[in-house]
């Protein structure tokens, strides 16, 4: 991606618009890079996290459901057994009483009361009363808290059922006393026909058997008969709508399970749109149905709590990942951008150097070609000068004019020579002999050399040299050329108006940094990019070659250093030269 970007960017065009376009495309590129890194980190970390967590949660949920269902099934099953056992026990008590005492004894109300008291003593207040009823439904004897002696049960539903079988346990009903209760009746026979010993079972005691089944906030159980009538009181819990659920109960009754003891579980929503678990099992040989019901939310409250906790943890985790992704990506992108801009700088330098080299070769070629004709011209003019010495002109004015013209030709020839000299030194340096150079001494010499010119231009030269700088191992004449150029340029920049020229030197790591600052008019930004280009000059035609700074640039570049410019229009310009000193050159003077 980076490489593509490099190929697309056109570095040879360095006008302002192109630069802004390039910056925009760079910005855009880094924004999308940033976005991509963030997305990739998030996707790669969050997706496995979510997959793993949801798989674990799903598996856990399934097994937890099974566990809860098993528990409820077991609960209901054991309770049906308990209730069945309870009923069987009561029944066998009464049967024992019937078989052991016989009707004659039991018809004696005193005896009956004695028996009742004995039963109550043994089993607690489960047995409320006892009564002996003949085949016509008349109560012959009664013992108990109600005044029910001589009561006629001939029309009572339970009596009709009880007289037909050996024993009978009734549904819960109000009966003559007007209170909910149920009856255990045992039929026996005497020579004058069947008789029945019945006992009322305390409803409150019976209800507690079912009330014991309580789980969570909403779990409770009821017993229904096969008509769907409640056989136990319903625990008063305001949140539960029992009447609406009756249809659900009757559904159980309508579809009796094949083995009556089997426990069935369904999940259905009631009229208030709450989902409930219903656990049902038949008891009393399929007459009654024990139904346990609980809100689904309540039954799985632990699971839901765990779910909320895990989700919260995951949300925090994901948030952490996002924050990490954003900061990480920011760091990466910042580094890439830095590397990128460094690369860009490098490339710019390479282009600059390449341009200098090619222009240099061209210039060298031209300079060589021009040298000969110029030399001939100068010599011819010299020859004319030689001849002038012999010839005497009539008019002395003309002679002076000739001499002036010849001199002018020679002067201009010398100027040509200077230009070609500069061009050639730009391509190939004259004195490349490398030696130890004390930069401060060199600068002092140049300052002394320039002081006369500076005085003319009303420029004050200030120097700020760090002492004991290591020496540079470079060519003296080249270095002189560079700083002579920079100092001259600085004075030119302040010409007429005057100002201050500051030359400073100091050591920075392995570099010597020399700054040449003027307080002149500054360089407009449009020109700043081009000042190191060969032949670029803002001076009037004939005043500057446009080679000075590009030569300086070439020289400093060759020394492995850097030549940079900082300029503010109206404030001044600073040329910063930094040249590395290495190896032997690094020793202190």
């Amino acid at each position, binding site marked *: 991606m980076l490489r593509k970007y490099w190929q697309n960017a056109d570095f040879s065009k360095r006008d302002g618009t192109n630069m802004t376009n390039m910056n925009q495309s760079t910005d855009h590129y880094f924004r999308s890079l940033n976005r991509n890194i963030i997305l990739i980190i998030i996707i790669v970390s969050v997706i496995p996290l979510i997959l793993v967590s949801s798989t674990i949660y799903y598996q856990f949920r399934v097994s937890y459901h099974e566990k809860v269902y098993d528990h409820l099934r077991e609960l209901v099953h054991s309770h049906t057994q308990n209730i069945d056992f309870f009923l069987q026990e009561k029944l066998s008590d009464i049967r024992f009483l019937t078989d052991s005492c016989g009707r004659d004894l039991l018809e004696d109300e005193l005896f009956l009361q004695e028996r009742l008291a004995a039963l109550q003593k043994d089993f607690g207040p489960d047995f409320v009363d006892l009564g002996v009823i003949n085949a016509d439904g008349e109560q012959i004897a009664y013992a108990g808290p109600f005044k029910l002696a001589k009561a006629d049960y001939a029309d009572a539903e339970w009596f009709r059922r009880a007289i037909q079988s050996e024993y009978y346990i009734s549904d819960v009903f109000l009966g003559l006393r007007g209170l909910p209760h149920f009856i255990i009746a045992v039929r026996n026979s005497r020579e004058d026909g069947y008789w029945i010993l019945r006992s009322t079972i305390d409803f409150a005691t019976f209800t507690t058997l079912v009330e014991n089944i309580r789980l969570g906030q909403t779990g409770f159980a009821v017993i229904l008969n096969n008509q769907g009538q409640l056989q136990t009181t319903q625990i008063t819990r305001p949140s539960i709508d029992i009447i609406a659920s009756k249809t659900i109960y009757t559904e159980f009754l309508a579809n009796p399970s094949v083995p009556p003891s089997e426990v069935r579980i369904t999940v259905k929503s009631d009229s208030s749109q709450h989902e409930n678990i219903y656990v049902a099992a038949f008891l009393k040989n399929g007459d009654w149905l024990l139904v346990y019901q609980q809100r689904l939310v309540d039954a799985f409250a632990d699971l839901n709590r765990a779910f909320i906790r895990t989700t919260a943890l995951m949300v925090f985790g994901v948030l952490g990942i996002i924050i990490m992704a954003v900061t990480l990506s920011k760091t990466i992108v910042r580094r890439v951008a830095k590397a990128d801009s460094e690369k860009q700088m490098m490339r710019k330098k390479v282009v600059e150097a390449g341009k200098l080299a090619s222009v240099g070769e061209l210039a060298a070629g031209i300079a060589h070609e021009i040298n000969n004709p110029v*030399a001939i011209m*100068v010599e011819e003019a010299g020859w004319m000068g030689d001849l002038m010495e012999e010839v005497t002109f009539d008019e002395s004015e003309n002679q002076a004019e000739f001499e002036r013209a010849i001199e002018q030709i020679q002067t201009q020839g010398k100027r040509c020579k200077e230009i070609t000299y500069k061009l050639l030194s730009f391509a*190939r340096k004259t004195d490349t002999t490398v030696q130890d150079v004390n930069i401060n001494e060199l600068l002092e010499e140049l300052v002394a050399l320039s002081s006369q010119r500076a005085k003319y231009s009303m420029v004050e030269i200030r120097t700020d040299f760090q002492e004991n700088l290591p020496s540079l191992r470079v060519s003296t004449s080249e270095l002189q050329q560079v700083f002579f150029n920079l100092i001259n340029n600085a004075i030119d920049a302040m010409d007429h108006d005057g100002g201050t020229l500051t030359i400073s030197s100091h050591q920075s790591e392995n570099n010597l940094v020399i700054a040449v600052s003027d307080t002149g008019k500054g360089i407009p930004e449009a020109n700043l990019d081009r000042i190191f280009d060969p032949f670029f000059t803002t001076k009037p035609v004939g005043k500057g070659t446009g080679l000075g700074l590009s030569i300086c640039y070439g020289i400093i570049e060759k020394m492995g250093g850097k030549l940079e410019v900082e300029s503010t229009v109206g404030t001044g310009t600073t040329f910063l030269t930094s040249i590395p000193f290495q190896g032997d050159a690094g020793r202190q003077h």
Partner: protein
Amino acid sequence: MTSSSKKINFDPVRLLLVDDEKDFVNILSKRIKRRNIEVTKAFSGAEAIQALRGQEFDVAVLDLKMEDMDGIEVLKMLKIMDPRLAVIMLTGHGSAEAAEQGIKLGAFDYLTKPCELEELLEKIMEAYAHRKQVE
């Protein structure tokens, strides 16, 4: 200048001027001749060698950049033919390496081209004096 030239009038310097730029050689020889130096022109390396065969010279001014032969080759030939010949090389600017090589091969000195006539004359005189000294 003129007075210094006249000093050596009694024993003129014999100069061989080698350069493939004819006009340059022509005008330069005219000017030098005016200063009482005996100048022989050669427009190529081959001509220079030929000229040296027929005559003895004190000093040779040799352009290092010529079309037919490399100036260094010509220098080698000239030095073989007359080891005492003082050769002043004319080099293009920045060809210091070639000039150094020439000096190693026995050339007297070098000047960068284009050079001032006065400079060249001084150098010629130096070379001549040097040759005389060696003799």
